[in-house]
C-alpha cells in the first residue's frame, strides 16, 4: 500500500506543476457538495422508510368490530350454548354455571393447546378440539387431551338497551383467577 502511494507520488511529480492550494479549494468544494448530496440521499432514504412503514399500517379495518351485541339475557335458557356467533366473531355465548353460580358468559373458540377452533358437541355436552382431541366442559374448563388450561372468557355486560354486549378486546383466564371478575359474566 505504502509502495503504491510512493509510486503515484513519484509519477505525479513528473507531471506539470499544479497549484496545490487551488486544488485544495476545489477539493473542499467538491467534498462539501458530495457531503450535502450524501446527507440529502440519507434524509430522503430515512423519510421514505418512515413513510412506507406508515403506509403498511391500515387505517380502516374490514374485520368485525371487537364489541358486539348478542341478544337479551332472556334469549338464553339454562344450559344453552349459542354457536351462531362462532363463525363471524369467534365466541360461544353460554348460559351455564361456574362454581355453582348460574352465569351467562362468552367463551373464546380458540383451543388453548395450539390455537385450533373447538367444536361444541351437544350430545357429549363438551367442547372438542378437532386437531389433537382436547376436551372442555361447558364452563370452558379443560378435562382431556393436551390443552394446558381452560378456554378464555371475553368481557360481557348488559348494555344500555338491555342487550348483552361482548367485548373481545378484554380476555379473562381462569387459571389466573380472573373469572371472579364480574366484568366477564352476567349473573342470572
Amino acid at each position, binding site marked *: *500500500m505504502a509502495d503504491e502511494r510512493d509510486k503515484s507520488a513519484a509519477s505525479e511529480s513528473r507531471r506539470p506543476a499544479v497549484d496545490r492550494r487551488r486544488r485544495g479549494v476545489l477539493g473542499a468544494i467538491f467534498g462539501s457538495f458530495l457531503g450535502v448530496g450524501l446527507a440529502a440521499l440519507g434524509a430522503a432514504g430515512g423519510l421514505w422508510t418512515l*413513510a412506507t412503514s406508515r*403506509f403498511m*399500517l391500515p*387505517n*380502516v379495518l374490514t374485520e368485525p368490530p371487537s364489541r358486539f351485541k348478542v341478544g337479551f339475557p332472556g334469549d338464553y335458557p339454562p344450559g344453552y350454548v349459542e354457536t351462531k356467533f362462532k363463525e363471524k366473531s369467534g365466541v360461544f355465548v353460554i348460559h351455564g354455571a361456574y362454581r355453582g353460580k348460574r352465569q351467562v358468559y362468552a367463551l373464546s373458540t380458540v383451543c388453548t393447546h395450539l390455537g385450533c377452533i373447538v367444536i361444541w358437541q351437544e350430545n357429549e355436552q363438551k367442547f372438542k378440539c378437532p386437531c389433537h382431541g382436547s376436551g372442555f366442559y361447558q364452563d370452558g374448563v379443560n378435562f382431556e387431551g393436551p390443552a394446558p388450561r381452560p378456554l378464555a372468557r371475553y368481557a360481557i355486560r348488559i348494555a344500555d338497551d338491555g342487550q348483552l354486549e361482548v367485548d373481545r378486546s378484554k380476555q379473562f383466564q381462569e387459571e389466573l383467577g380472573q373469572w371472579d371478575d364480574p366484568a366477564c359474566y352476567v349473573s342470572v
Partner: protein
Amino acid sequence: MGFVERVRNSQLWKSIFRHPAPVDRRNRALVVLTNFILHLHPVSIKKHGLRLSYTWCMGGITFFLFLVETITGVLLMFYYRPTLEWAYNDMLALRDVVSLGVLREVHRWGAHAMVITVWLHMYRVFLTGSYKRPREFNWVVGVVLLVLTLLLSFTGYLLPWDQLSIWAITVGSNMARAVPILGHEGPGQQILTVGGIDMITSASDARFALLGARVVGEETLNRFYVLHCVAIPLVAAFLMGVHFWRIRKDGGISGPM
C-alpha cells in the same frame, strides 16, 4: 493508517467489495467491472454519450420510471385484492383512507409517463440511426419492450374495476375476436375445422384465453392481475437486462451522425 484506510482494509469491507480502493485508473475500472450493481455500465464511455441533446436520456428515464412502477406497484399489492368484492373498494380506500395512498396516483402517472418516454426513446433512436448495424438486434429487443410497456398499461387499466376499466377491456379484448385464424370472428377461422366441427369458437379462441371467460369478469380480473404484476414484469426485466448489456457490447451509445 487513517480510519478510512483501516475500514478499507478490514476483512468485512474486503468480503463485500472485491476490488481495492479506486485511487488509480486501473482500480477505478475494476470498481465498475467487479461490482454487481455497476457491471451493466461500461467502464468508460465516449464524451458525446453524455450529451443530453443527443440521447435525451429517454431510455434512462424509462428505466427509472420502471423502477418507480415496480416499487409503488409492490406497495399497492399490499392493499389491493383482485376480486369482484374488493378490487374497486380497495382502489377507493387507497385514494381516501390509506396513509400515503397517493402512491396509487404516482403509479398511474408514472405509467402514463413511461409510455411517453419509451416512445420518445424509440423516436430518438430512429432519428440518430442507432438501429443500424451492429445494433439491429437491440432495436428488435427494444420494440418488444415497447409492446410489453403497452401491455403493462393495458392490463393495469382493468385493475381499478370501475366502469371505464371494464368497458375499455371489453372493447380492447374484442379485437382478439377478429384475429386471423385464432379469433372466432376473424378471417380464416373456418380453416381450423375437424370433421365439420369448428375448433375456433367463442369458447376456444384467443379472446377466450385472454379473458378466461366469454365476458370480462372475475376470471379476467385475476388473469390481468397476474399478467400485470408477475408475468409481464418478469419478461420485461429479463429483456431490459439483455437490452442494456447489448448497448455496451454493440459499442456503447452510438456516435453522432
